[in-house]
């Protein structure tokens, strides 16, 4: 009886602890990431042919992370990028990606299919997993010491026709380029 109770208790404790961590941590981190996503847009040249027209919205697609999506939805109203109103859109794998400028693929594990789909559609892909850049994303969030940073793959950005400002690169934790 005693032996059965110990794993349960341990599991319960773990759950509570993780629940507490989940409750405190993700709120701050997700809103920081949402703000970063919006801020990236200011340091990147967006190919004009990706927009349907002058009034077409600047769409930030979010996959696998409802908290980031929610934070972004709170953040973007009234903001614009190069004259296009910013719109946040929650996406599921397989959703059409036309009109999406910036695609955030959440999750600790790289959703390679989603990343590839985003790249093929011409969107700039942002991930938050350790192997993100290797999986093909252009920007990947890295969290160290409770501090959100990011790394950049210039090759990936170049493939989709995006140019990232050196000012942004100066803040990046790591910049990956062909040959390095």
């Amino acid at each position, binding site marked *: 009886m005693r032996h059965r109770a110990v794993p349960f208790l341990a599991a319960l404790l773990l759950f509570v602890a993780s629940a507490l961590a989940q409750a405190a941590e993700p709120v701050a981190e997700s809103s*920081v990431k949402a703000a*970063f996503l919006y*801020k990236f847009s*200011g*340091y990147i040249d967006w190919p004009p042919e990706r927009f349907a027209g002058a009034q077409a919205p600047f769409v930030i697609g979010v996959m696998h992370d409802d908290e980031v999506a929610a934070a972004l939805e709170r953040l973007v109203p009234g903001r614009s990028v190069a004259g296009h109103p910013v719109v946040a859109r929650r996406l599921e794998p397989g959703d059409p990606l036309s009109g999406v400028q910036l695609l955030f693929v959440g999750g600790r594990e790289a959703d390679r299919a989603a990343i590839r789909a985003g790249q093929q559609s011409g969107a700039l892909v942002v991930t938050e997993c350790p192997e993100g850049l290797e999986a093909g994303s252009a920007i990947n969030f890295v969290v160290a010491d409770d*501090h*959100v*940073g*990011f790394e950049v793959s210039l090759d990936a950005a170049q493939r989709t026709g995006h140019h990232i*400002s050196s*000012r*942004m690169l*100066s*803040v990046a934790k790591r910049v990956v380029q062909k040959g390095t």
Partner: protein
Amino acid sequence: MLRRLRTSISRKIMLLVLVTTASALLLSAAGLVVYDLRSYERQWTGDLNLQAEILARASAPALSFDDHQTAEKDLSIIRARPEVLAAALYTDEGRLFATYLEEGERPQTFPEHPEADGYHILGDEVVVFRRVVERGEPLGTIYIRARYLPWDRVLDYLAILGVVMVASLALSGLVFGWLQRGVTAPILDVARVAREVMQRRDYSLRARKASDDEIGELVDAFNGMLAEAGRRAEALREADRRKDEFLATLAHELRNPLAPLRNAVEILRTPQATEQMHERALGMMDRQLRQMVRLVDDLLDVSRITTGKLTVRKSVFDLREAVRDAIETVRPFVDSREHVFEVSLAEDALPVDGDRARLGQVIGNLLHNAAKYTEPGGRIWLSAAREDGEATIRVRDSGIGLDERSIADIFDMFVQVDRSLTRAQAGLGVGLTLARRLIGLHGGTVTAYSEGLGHGSEFIVRLPLVEGEAKPPEAPAQEAEGRSDRPRRILLADDNVDFARSLAEVLERHGHEVRVAYDGEAALREVESFRPDFAFLDIGMPKVHGYELARRLRERPETAGCVLVAVTGWGQEDDRRRAREAGFARHLVKPVDPAEIESIVAEG
């Protein structure tokens, strides 16, 4: 002290140059300092603003993506500006985000919260705040603190000014030295000469002329004035000397006739004297008296010339008349010196507008001189003719002649040629001066020529002719004499008893009834019982003087028609005017020729 202030013009100019230079430098330096302080502040704060802007732009991504390390790296680029002591980056919420401190700068507390954009100066530091804005959104604030040391610059300026000042003053000194040579030295030389002239009364000193500019002109003018002053001093001395000689001559000449007169009186008193002796004595007295009268007349003329009151009474007449008068007057003297006298008069009349008596006097004087300055037995020529539209009279002699210098100043007052002769020949040396003045008053000229000493001389008088007929000559004297026998009642008033009695005797001998009074009151008493036709009144009389007496006589009905004649020693124009105003009809100057009185009585 006063002396030091006055000492020298060079000191004043030195002071002027130095003060001018120094004040110009100080003023311009002050202006520069003020300008520089203002521009330093503007430039430095502008510069810091620019730095802040650059930092803001550079650190915007770090701020955006919350990257402290990069932010601090970004801030540290300001190290290139050593004047910047500290810099900091604040987040939009006002939280200190990143900081930078100049090496060696002690850690300081940064402001807890950022302030609004702008700068302010705190002592020797300036603080700048500037917002970091990206895509229109405020991200945070940049803070820069830098050194602000305008006084260092002012000190630099003062040091430079000091050097410039010393150099400028040295240069001014050099310039002044040059000025001193070119400007003040000649002026000081003039001042020195002026001082010497004043001390030594030596007008032959001259200032040295060093340049051809205004100062040179000044020196020339100064030397010219010295020469003029010297000439005048010499002229004054000369005039003074002549006046002294004149006085000596005058005393001598006035004394000369007195001895013969006294001798004549002695002869007349001698009972044994024969009729012949009486005649000779009387003739002698007459000649000597005439000579004295002539001298005194000359003296009066001198007085008129020196006071500028010489006047002439003009009327149109034939100049030949005046020549004949003069010949008549001088002929006895010419004959006495046994000269050959040749006269040539124009056949036609020479009408001139002038004073016949005065012109006669001038011609007579020239003839007299010719006779006087020619050794006995010489020749004298007189001509009166019309030459070049002018009446021209020439008096030439074969006498002692004149040297050049004499010709130049022979017309000056009191000048006489050849003292030795002068002593022998009477005269005061005013004749030619008088002649020139009188001829000048007639609009004519008188000039002297001579071929040198011993070659005789010639005096030429030129007078403007008047068109038209000369007035007929005045009534001959005989007519007056014809009436002179008419007996008249005559009153004589004079405190000079001898003069009054002798004149009364002369008039009584001509058949007139004469009363004599010796003062004004006596004269008034006389007229109560005696209605005179003529009254000859002295002016300077006791009790009632002549002018007053004349007025009273004019007021009385019984003497209102009486002819009043002033007889006085005062012959100036002023005296004549006063006499006229008092009611005198005529004015005679003593000594009076009895013949003159007789002719007045005859005319009246």
